[in-house]
């Protein structure tokens, strides 16, 4: 029978550094395999839509502008994504990658989480089209 129990932990911790990290001052880099923001490579995409079929959050949309000249607009929402990496495994053409970027994502609006990959004019026309659609 001992009385000390956790007291030795408490006493020795007084002379040690804190276990927590001083976050905004000292950022901790995410690990290499971290499931962060999705990255899309339009040059490798074929528009087969396999990534959209099994997405559990149904957050990937690919709009085909022209399949031959590899022109696609990929829409992806960081806030809806569950970071499971299934789309990366479904892609047979190596067009999708999980990066360890943007792990501290925050936005003051829902639109801030929406990402568009593709040529600027295509994205603009897609957004214009969306705005013109009557909202239900």
């Amino acid at each position, binding site marked *: 029978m001992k*009385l000390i129990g956790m007291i030795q*932990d408490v006493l020795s911790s007084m002379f040690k550094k804190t276990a927590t990290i001083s976050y905004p001052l000292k950022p901790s880099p995410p690990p290499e395999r971290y499931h962060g923001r999705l990255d899309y490579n339009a040059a490798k995409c074929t528009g087969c839509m396999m990534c959209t079929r099994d997405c559990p959050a149904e957050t990937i949309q690919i709009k085909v502008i022209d399949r031959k000249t590899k022109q696609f607009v990929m829409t992806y929402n960081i806030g809806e994504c569950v970071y499971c990496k299934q789309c990366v495994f479904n892609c047979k053409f190596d067009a999708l990658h999980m990066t360890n970027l943007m792990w501290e994502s925050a936005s003051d609006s829902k639109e801030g989480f929406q990402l568009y990959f593709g040529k600027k004019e295509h994205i603009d026309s897609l957004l214009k089209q969306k705005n013109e659609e009557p909202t239900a």
Partner: protein
Amino acid sequence: MTDNLIDSNKSQKYIVPIGPQHPALKEPGHFEFTVEGEIVVDASIRLGYVHRGVEKAAESRTWTQVLYLVERVCGICSHAHGTAFIQNAEALAGIEIPPRAKVIRAIAGEIERLHSHLLWLGVAAHEGGFDAMFMYSWRDREIVMDILENFFGNRVNYSVNIPGGVKEDITPEFAEQLRIKLDFLEKRLKHYLDVVNDDVTFRARTVNIGTLGKEEMTRLGATGPTARSAGITRDIRVDRPYSGFDIYPINMILDDHGDLNARFVVRLKECFESIRYIRDVLEKIPEGELSVKFPRKIPAGESMSSVEAPRGELFYFVRSNGTENPDRVKVRTASLCNWGTIVSAVAKGHKLADMPMILAGIDPCFSCNDRMVNIVGKEKNAQLWTWEQLRKYGINYHAMQEGFNVSDCGIEQLREEK
């Protein structure tokens, strides 16, 4: 007027309602403790505040999407849920996953057990007012969380499984990192075991509190560390070894005291066994592929599988109708089996102040175990089955599945032969 005054000589019973929002546990559950003075004489429980309709939602998703849905049934044992579901899907599709994938699944399961038991150790100590242990065990749990993040990409809901195998490989560099972290963790766990066994105040709160014998525990259908703390040899990893545990077996940890202290000891010793298992398996992890091709449509059929989650036996039933979506998914979590031990036996005879620790003793997980029960009325051919009838039906059903007939030999004979 005198009728309204409390007669101090007469024993009075009061019902103390606790919950759904309450100071003891972090998840919603309503308890009613009937007390006589300070002693609890009866207890009842009401669950169902966090019903999310997961089983119904699974029916409208593809097999792959359901894997990620069921991983989110529980935030602590997400790998166990994913494995139990995908084992059914793979059995129905007639797929055998590569041995390397099986072993990585087992390792992930044991890492998950480590983080779950450390989390529980902190919570249970906190319920007993032992906050120093709560803080230090949660600090050490971060090591396990870092392991999960480094290996599988996420801290929680790490999605190790993919239909037909696993996603990430365990490379030699990762294995080396893992060994170093496990060495430190083992040192800390030894210290916690010493505290649990030796500390006077801690023992005063746990020894001979919430004691339940082997027979009672068996009758109430306890599972997992709660059952093993009373000496019941019940562990799915040993009884019906699944992915990985059939290649490299694991030892069962038992204690025969059956009290709250035994539950601490069993869980901490299980952590040592998990560390031992991971170390051993890392040495001889088989070479080969990580996954095999998984079909989009699965042939019609029914399948059942059990996985030893950190809390006990996790059961999944899956029925396929030959399409891209499952026809029915049934989940039965371990917490649901263990509630019976508290409300019908353990709680009675103890002080109300012991209730938070007794409740935390089974490691309850509320949102996991909320399922809808549809009670069919008499007009719809409802049947009332006794335990023996149900058991007989179960044996006959499985015998027919295996292809032999046991209709002419009674259950008692079967028991004797066993």
